[in-house]
Every structure is written in C-alpha cells, then in structure tokens.
C-alpha cells in the first residue's frame, strides 16, 4: 500500500475508488480549407521552400526549379535554417512574404521530427493565405507529417511523400527521385494541362 503525506479518501481494498482522467480531450477534427491550382502551370509563381539542413532536398528543389522554368512557371525560392532566435523570426517572416508573393508553394523538407513539424507549419502558413500548398516529407515521417497538419488544424494539407532516407544517397539517385516525383508534385498542387 502506498504512503500518503495527507489523508485520502481511499476506501477498503475490497471496494472501489474514484479517480479523474488525466488526459486532455481530443481536439475536434476540424480541417481548414485546402486549395488547388486547378489550371495550367504556365505563368504561375511557384514558391520552393528549402532548408539549410538538407542538401538532398536542396538538389531536388534546384532540379524542380529548372523544370518549373522549363514549363513556363516562375520559381521563387526561400531557404529557412532555424527554429528559434532572430534567424527563426526572419525565416517565418520570409515564409509569410512568400505566401503573399506566390500563387502556390512546395514546402520541404520533413525528414526528421522537428524539421517535419516546421515544414508542415510553414506549408500551413501558405495555406492560411489561401494558396495551394504541398508539404514534402520523407516516408519515415509521413504519418508524423499528417498528424502535425491535423494538430495545426489543417488535416487536409497535401503531403508529397518521398523515399527515406534522402541524405547520403548518391547524386544520380536524387536526380532520379527529382524526375520521378516532379509530376506528382504538380498533380498534388492541382496543376492541369
């Protein structure tokens, strides 16, 4: 039997006790609106958010930027690098500005726990500006990405899942991944010919 420093109302061990549930109620499953391009790519300003941490994604984003230009769109790149401090404040401001300036955005990369959380959060910023937005998350963190989107109230945020891991892959594999998933990214954005 446990010892208490104060008198409890614990009854005989053959009877029952009443306790309180320690968990917070689950939030309502409300999802903010999500948006699609629903038109051609040509002429669109497409935001590309990279992160200083992930060189694999920087390469893929560079390749996609070239493809976007090839296909008549105008890529606008923003690189984030911090989660706290002045640099983080600037990063979030840049994302807000990006969301203002572009027609749609591709936000990556989620390939760890906290970076997935922040990639989702930045994709949500774009969606809050009523712009089509997709988050790019590596497979290992896809469920986490969907969870974070839901917890932020944007459960319908579109997430493009790339293979995991991406870092430490040789360049030719990353190029193949870039080629393979570029059409999928456009499809998720709702680009139509």
């Amino acid at each position, binding site marked *: 039997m446990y010892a208490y420093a104060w008198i409890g109302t614990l009854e005989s061990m053959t009877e029952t006790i009443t306790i309180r549930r320690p968990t917070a109620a689950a939030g309502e499953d409300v999802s903010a609106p999500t948006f699609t391009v629903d038109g051609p790519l040509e002429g669109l300003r497409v935001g590309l958010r990279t992160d200083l941490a992930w060189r694999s994604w920087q390469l893929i984003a560079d390749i996609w930027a070239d493809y976007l230009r090839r296909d008549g769109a105008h890529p606008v790149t923003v690189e984030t690098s911090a989660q706290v401090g002045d640099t983080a404040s600037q990063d979030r401001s840049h994302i807000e500005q990006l969301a203002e300036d572009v027609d749609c955005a591709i936000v990556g990369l989620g390939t760890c*726990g906290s970076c997935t959380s922040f990639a989702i959060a930045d994709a949500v910023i774009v969606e809050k500006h009523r712009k089509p937005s997709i988050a790019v998350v590596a497979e290992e963190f896809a469920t986490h990405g969907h969870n974070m989107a839901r917890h932020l109230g944007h459960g319908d945020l579109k997430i493009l899942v790339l293979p995991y891991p991406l870092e430490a892959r040789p360049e030719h594999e990353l190029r193949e991944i870039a080629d393979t998933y570029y059409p999928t990214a456009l499809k998720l954005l709702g680009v139509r010919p």
Partner: protein
Amino acid sequence: MTAGSLTAETIELDADPRALYELSLEERWGDGVPLLPPTDDVIESLLVTTPYPPEHVLCALPPRYGVATVELVAINAAMAGCTPAAFPYVIAALDAITVPEWNAFGLTTTTSSVFPMLIVNGPSRDDVGIDYRAGCMGGAAGRGSMTIGRAVSLCLRNIGGQRAGDTSRSVFGQPARFGMCFGEWEERSPWPSLARRRGFDETDDVMTVHGGKGTFPLADINNDDPRDLLYLLAKSIAFPLSNMYLGHAENGQVVLAINPMWAERFAAPFPDVEEMQAFLWEHAWQPVELWPAPNQEILRKKERVRDDGRVHLVERPDQIVPIVCGGLGSLHAIALPSFGESEMQSVAVVRA
C-alpha cells in the same frame, strides 16, 4: 474548494493499486511505472497551493496542443506523487516549456533524445526535496526531484500527447524522459547561482528548463592546474557530433554541471564566472580539419568556420552555462548537451 469544481471525467475502479497500474498501461497514461490514484482530495490539496482556479488554462501543450488546465496538470501531478509544496514547481516548468523560444513544438517531436531537464534554485529546495548533492541526477531519490520531473513528463504525455514512436519521433529517448529535476548547490558555489545570473533574486524559487539531450559524463584524476582541467572540459563538450554544430551557433546552451570541489578549484583563477565562461568558450572548438571533407563543406556553407579554421561550439561564452551541484567525491563533471534550436527558460515559482 469542493469536488464540484473539478470537471475531468471520473473513473471508478478497484481500490487495489494494481488496478490503476493496469488501467494506466491499457489507456497509455503512464510511463510504465505504477502511478498513484488521482482522487479528488489529493487533486484539491495540490490546487490550493496555486493562485489559479482549476479551470484556468495554463497553456496548450505540443505536440497535440492539448489544453492544459490547472486541474489536468494537478491530476497528473497527483499521479506522480507530488506533494502540495511541489505542485507550483510543476506549473512553473510547464510555463517555461511553453515559452515559444524553448521550442516545444520542435523538441516534443524531434528524432533527437532531447527532453526538458529541470533545474531548481532558491531557498525552498530542501523543503520540497530537490536533489542537488550526491546523486542529484539519479540515485538520490528526493521526493521533489523525482515527482516534479515525473509530473512534467506525464503532462507532456497525457495532455500534450507526446508518445515515443508516435507523435514523438525520438530515435532513442533517454532516461530523463521519466522525469529529470535537480537543483543547484548554491551554498557550495563560489559564483552567483544560475537563477541570480538569469536575473532573479536570491529569495526567489526558480525553475529553469533546459532542452538537454542527455547526461554526458566527464572525468579527471590527472590535472593539478584548474586551467588545464577547464581546457579539457571545453574540448570535451565540443565533441564533433554535437547537435550544436548542426544549426546556428548563436542558439541554445550547454549546461556544465561542476562538482563543489572542482568549483572551488576553478574559482581560484576565475572568481568571476563570466571570465570562466569566456575561458571555456575560448577552448570549446575543433579544427575544421577534424571533420571529413564533405562535413567541412557543410560547415563552411553554414558559416560555422572562422578565418582561423576553428569551428566553435557556440557563438558566445554565455551559452556555456556552469552550475554547481553533485557530491563531494570530486573527479567528475556532467555536461548536458543541447538540442541547439532551443533557448533555456527560467520562471519564478508562484504560490497561492
């Protein structure tokens, strides 16, 4: 206060303590270790120690942004075995954790092992049972230390929804996830306490929360000159796979827990703690050549390499945070390496 003021769902169960334990495992409330029953009388005894009504919302706890009312926090603190005197420290810790610059959003979801490490200052340490002497980071078993840390951990789990393998992507976790709360041995420190250095009065009871990745043990039996020993401590904390090299040098802190005997030795050449921090910073670096070539390129791109080829662990001396604690056996220090993208937060303990 009457039971009518509590609103959390009631659950009736067998009075056998094992029944609660089994329920906690089934409902995933717990940390795998038996819990105490959060009955109304116990919860209310905790609530009277704070100035807040039970329905007061303290914060929304990541990762699921569960709403942490004072009542819910008290329920979890009751399960952890907190005494009424300890409960305000739990509240203070959650206040600190949810300061945006602590980055609970990142730290509760990361693959890293980081978890809140609670450091207590102030005149009430002994009254509450905070460990700051031998075994303060494990083994001393002070009631305050063990239950406050655990209460915070249970709140993150049950209110914030942080669960390893699910919302928390932590690859390894660490022992501090059961709860880690220790104090500074202020009376044996030759320098102002951590709380004083962070702007609090010596009469304040203060809770500081550090996002620490684990306890990194450092030992020495050889060095007679305290400056030599400090040099080696600085080199040790600047280990090449430190999180501090992954991001921005200006973010985060590394805590260096120094035992009282070493503190006395260090105070001889460094009666001023800022000068000791400057000395540590001066030596807490590695040459960029230590890293393989691809890493060197990355460090250069991240602007971490100075003109002299040094890669400093942190940008400023104040990011190396010494505290005095531990036993009188000397010979050891402990570093609490940082997640990096998180700023240590300190909050005064508020009582009714």
